[in-house]
């Protein structure tokens, strides 16, 4: 008896439509965030994360409506990331029905923003997203740096130090993505995940690289993550969330079934 490790499917949303093609059987509209969220809720998703990849800020308002619609029908926690830069952005998403917002570039531009947001809205709703890449040479002790712009632009910031700092600034959770692994289906960067988890006191969501159900379990057991986030293995119906949970349970992980 105890706290379950969470599985969080992540949906990329562009101008109100889910992109990167979700391929459920019998889905009427593969781009409809409400229908997809409902599916994931039925499968037993513990939370859902929406990443707003809309390029133009004029179209950002669309995301607010997406969150409103989903939150009216799906009664599990919702996180929204992408384009959260001001306290007003945070407020609008929370008022629309999001439970948490994920802050990435805006935290790097001005770390105090995280402190202000946590003080205003509570730590529980502030997730700091960290995109990290290994920068050590073979044989050196491991070191990771924060990258922005989809992993193209280095910031010179040490990932472990940054995580510790965001923890101290009042982040309630860290969404950690390995840019080395993202999209590779080779599994999480377990060393990175574990280093961040052990350096902080808040929950860590591991992300980037999931290709098999064992990768999910490894993220928890070896990476010491509190939750695992994945996109393609669920979207393409390779596995359902329930299958993933059964697999994790078989490896001794506590899950919500």
């Amino acid at each position, binding site marked *: *008896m*105890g*706290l*379950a*490790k*969470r599985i969080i499917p992540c949906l990329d949303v562009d101008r109100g439509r889910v992109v990167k093609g979700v391929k459920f059987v019998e889905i009427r509209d593969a781009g409809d965030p409400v229908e997809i969220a409902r599916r994931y*809720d039925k499968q037993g998703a*513990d939370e859902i994360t929406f990443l707003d990849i809309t390029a133009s800020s004029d179209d950002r308002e669309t995301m607010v409506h997406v969150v*409103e619609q989903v*939150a*009216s*029908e799906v*009664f*599990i*926690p919702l996180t929204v990331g992408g384009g959260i830069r001001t306290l007003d952005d945070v407020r609008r998403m*929370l*008022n*629309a*029905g999001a*439970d948490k917002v994920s802050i990435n570039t805006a935290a790097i531009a001005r770390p105090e923003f995280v402190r202000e947001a946590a003080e205003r*809205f*509570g*730590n*529980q709703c502030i997730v700091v997203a960290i995109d990290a890449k290994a920068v050590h040479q073979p044989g050196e002790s491991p070191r990771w740096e924060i990258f922005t712009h989809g992993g193209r632009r280095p910031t010179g910031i040490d990932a472990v130090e940054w995580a510790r700092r965001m923890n101290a600034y009042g982040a*309630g*959770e860290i969404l950690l993505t390995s840019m080395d692994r993202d999209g590779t289906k080779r599994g999480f960067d377990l060393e990175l995940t574990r280093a961040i988890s052990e350096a902080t*006191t*808040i*929950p*860590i969501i591991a992300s980037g690289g999931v290709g098999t159900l064992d990768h999910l379990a490894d993220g928890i057991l070896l990476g010491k993550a*509190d*939750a695992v986030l994945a996109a393609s293995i669920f979207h393409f119906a390779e596995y359902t969330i329930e299958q993933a949970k059964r697999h994790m349970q078989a490896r001794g992980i506590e899950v*919500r079934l």
Partner: protein
Amino acid sequence: MTSIAIIDYGMGNLRSVAKALEHVAPQARVIVTQNRQDILQADRVVFPGQGSIRDCMRELAHWNLVDVVRDAALGKPFLGLCLGPQALLDFSEENDGVAGLGVLPGRVVRFADPRDPVTGERLKVPHMGWNQVRQAGNHPLWRGIPQDSRFYFVHSYYPRPADETLVAGWTCYGFEFASVIARDNIFAVQFHPEKSAQAGLRLLANFANWNP
């Protein structure tokens, strides 16, 4: 037709709570309000809370709602959510110590370095995610909800009521704490039923039909 007032005193977004209640009790009139009359006249009251206890108590006073909340807690079906049960107790150690409403006897304390009782591993704070609730007794609000069902939690402080007879549910996070406290017409849960899928919706439905 029953009316349910969700007390809005500026502490967090209540849209999800309202939507979930409307979903399970379409016949009920659900209002999100800071109006004293609305709250006094409602058949049922939901007392939510989010953020820090100091802000919570300050906003209650600012909106002149302290006596109204106390009255409701003593007189009609009353559901406390998240910070709600903490505010009902005498005192919280958050923010260097804050007096609560004192409707129920007890204190609120922080998860101080919780450890897994089996492995000894350090547990993360906030306590965030889906954890089980062991129901204590046959409260009507547990009707149709299996023993040890999981609910969604997110908090760093937990209620420690003075008297175990006030505990309607226990949850383990390093040790057992009172995740649900109840007395007479009051039922107050540390978790978020509006974000707890089927089990949470059932609890809200039970509340909409509860006649203590």
